[in-house]
């Protein structure tokens, strides 16, 4: 009991402290003070990128001091885990850079607050932004109908290919409505000694979900009330991936595969990704042998996307200043920094249509398919316990692609575990 009360006392003090600025804010919204901003620190230049992005914010708002805090991780999921650990350790960030994978998780735990009230207040100011962003992207930052942030950047899954390899194999550039059979034919023609047509990846957003989506299925229903890993269409899509490795032998063993390296080294002709490989490829100015096309059609051609944004933490003691920063990140001149230059923190696609479809994006020739695909797109399946879901799924994917567990058995087992996780985290 004693421990508990000593734990509660600072919490009470914190709650009082939090109430204080809220009261004053209601009287006269004034944006000043420190805003702690957590970002995914995935490489050495990331912090510098964010500092550059925030330069004009600091100039325009000298009363607000943005404090940058990096958290590391190999994926969005792992980054999210680090932030959670940070919060558990007593740090109270005001906002963080977070993608679809984390929004629902944070919202379910009530760590972030909906911003519908703030949006309603500043409706006139934000109208221009909403006019310029695809509604499906905005939906990607909604949980149960409530809005948690403004899409900043996003990615959808496309197939990257090497035009010179296609040419050498006598293949034309794939058409936007190419099918999975076309894709297989391409991969077979492109595969030769030490060159693989495609690389299957033991990954969630990147490796497996796009194939499930293209087959008109997913791991869960849309509202995450039940797992659907045992759907025959999931099995069919996963069997196709296993066959790419073991039957058709057009993809290398996925364990230890590094797609960017292989692609640049000419050992790989096609792989799946969003826009981000451009960050790596543009480091070698002489490497221009790449282009993209929509994911091949299965039973449908639904594209998978993930979007990021900056939600406001429920515990934020400085909502007004944070809101100012959140609106700043939605501005066109700020999002414009993501295209044309490569020294910014993300190699993603800007959320604004006017930027994503501008010729500044032309470092990838067929860049227009990015935004065009949003007409028929669904967000990456990210239920509340995404971290568990991802590890469970990848554990079984690795056994399927290694050929160690028949697809049906693996999916039945995954179904049981995913169902349990959903039940536990409702």
């Amino acid at each position, binding site marked *: 009991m004693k421990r508990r009360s000593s*734990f509660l006392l600072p919490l009470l003090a914190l709650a009082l402290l939090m109430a204080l600025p809220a009261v004053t804010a209601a009287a006269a919204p004034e944006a000043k003070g420190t805003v702690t901003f957590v970002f995914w620190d995935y490489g050495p230049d990331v912090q510098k990128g964010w500092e550059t992005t925030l330069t004009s914010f600091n100039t325009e708002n000298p009363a607000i001091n943005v404090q940058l805090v990096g958290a590391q991780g190999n994926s969005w*999921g*792992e980054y999210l*885990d680090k932030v*959670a*650990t940070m*919060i*558990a350790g007593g740090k109270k960030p005001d906002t963080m850079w977070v993608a679809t994978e984390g929004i629902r998780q944070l919202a379910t*735990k009530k*760590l972030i607050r909906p911003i519908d009230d703030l949006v309603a207040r500043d409706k006139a100011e934000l109208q221009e932004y909403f006019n310029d962003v695809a509604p499906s992207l905005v939906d990607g930052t909604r949980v149960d109908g409530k809005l948690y942030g403004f899409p900043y950047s996003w990615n959808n899954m496309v197939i990257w290919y090497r035009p010179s390899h296609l040419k050498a194999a006598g293949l034309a550039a794939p058409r936007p409505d190419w099918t999975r059979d076309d894709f297989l034919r391409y991969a077979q023609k492109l595969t030769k000694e*030490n060159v*693989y047509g495609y690389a299957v990846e*033991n990954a969630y957003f990147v490796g497996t979900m796009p194939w499930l989506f293209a087959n008109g299925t997913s791991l869960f229903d849309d509202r995450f009330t039940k797992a659907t890993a045992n759907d025959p269409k999931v099995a069919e899509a996963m069997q196709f991936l296993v066959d790419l490795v073991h039957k058709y032998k057009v993809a*290398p*063993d*996925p*364990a*230890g*595969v*590094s797609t960017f390296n*292989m692609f640049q080294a000419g*050992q790989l002709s096609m792989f799946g990704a969003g826009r981000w490989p451009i960050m790596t490829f543009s480091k070698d100015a002489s490497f221009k042998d790449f282009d993209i096309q929509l994911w091949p059609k299965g039973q449908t051609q639904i594209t998978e996307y993930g979007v990021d944004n900056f939600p406001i933490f429920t515990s934020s003691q400085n909502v007004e200043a944070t809101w100012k920063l959140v609106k700043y990140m939605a501005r066109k001149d700020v999002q414009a920094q993501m295209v044309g230059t490569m020294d910014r923190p993300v190699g993603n696609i800007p959320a604004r249509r006017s930027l994503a479809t501008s010729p500044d994006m032309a470092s990838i020739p067929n860049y227009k398919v990015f935004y065009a695909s949003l007409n028929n797109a669904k967000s990456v399946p990210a239920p509340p316990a995404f*971290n*568990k879901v991802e*590890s469970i799924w*990848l*554990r*079984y994917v*690795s*056994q399927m*692609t*290694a050929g*160690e*567990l028949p697809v049906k058995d693996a999916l039945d087992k995954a179904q049981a575990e995913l169902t349990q996780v959903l039940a536990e985290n409702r």
Partner: protein
Amino acid sequence: MADRERRELMSRAAQREALWGYLFLLPTAAGFVIFILGPMLGALGISLLRWDLLTPPRFAGFANYVHLLHDARLHLMVGNTILFVIGDVLLNMLLGLGLALLLRRKLGGVISYLARLAFFFPVIVSVSSAAAIWIFFLQKDLGVINYYLHLIGLPKIPWLSSSKWSLRSVVLFDVWKNVGFYAMVFLAGLHNIPPQFREAAIVDGANEAQLLRHVTLPLLTPSVFFAVVIALINGFQVFAQSQILTRGGPGDASRTMVMYIYEQGFRYFEMGYASSVAVLLFIVIAALTFLQFRGSRRWVFYE
């Protein structure tokens, strides 16, 4: 009176000396308490909770420990960890000893220096960067090792992607990484053996094999004991090696206990359960180390 004064004076001096002693101990002791003992007791406490870090913890009694008994995944990983430790300790000891014996031979100054450097170099390279490079060696279809196996007509080995090979690959990597350290421990041990024992045996007509069996090895046992204890403790804590090389896969085939602690604690936020696995690991390591110290009386010879 004078006697008492002197005694008081002495004891004061002794006290002051003791105080200095404690002061000098303080940094290490404080570090031990703050960074080792504290977290250990903390883990023991947390193992009795259900706690997801983000919402207040709830007392769970021994529920986490009961779950340990029924968790088939954990049992597999305990098995993996034990297999890893057996392979890792055996190979590190045998190869380390072999290397040390080779290095003791009279190589030229520079060659001996270079050889030691070569064997010790992997020890100082960070596990994660070395493992990232090893992936290029071990990848099944594009890896360096299979390229050469293929050249001489052997089939490709799925080093990272088969449950038969993935744990072996982790052992292989770890031995490459650490055998230099054990070789240096053994080499130092060999240098500490007074030459007169060997000389006396040679005079008695002992051959090389007999020398090794009856003189060198018995006198090297303190080093072997030290190395086995260290290797065993390190082995049970294996994490980064398989986390990077195989990500524990395929499935859980190369997942170890510490990886599971990480997964449960920092991916699943089951801090209580993760702590109970950590306590289990602690008990296993402590028990084995205790047994080794007890057993060492039978086979470790100090001159």
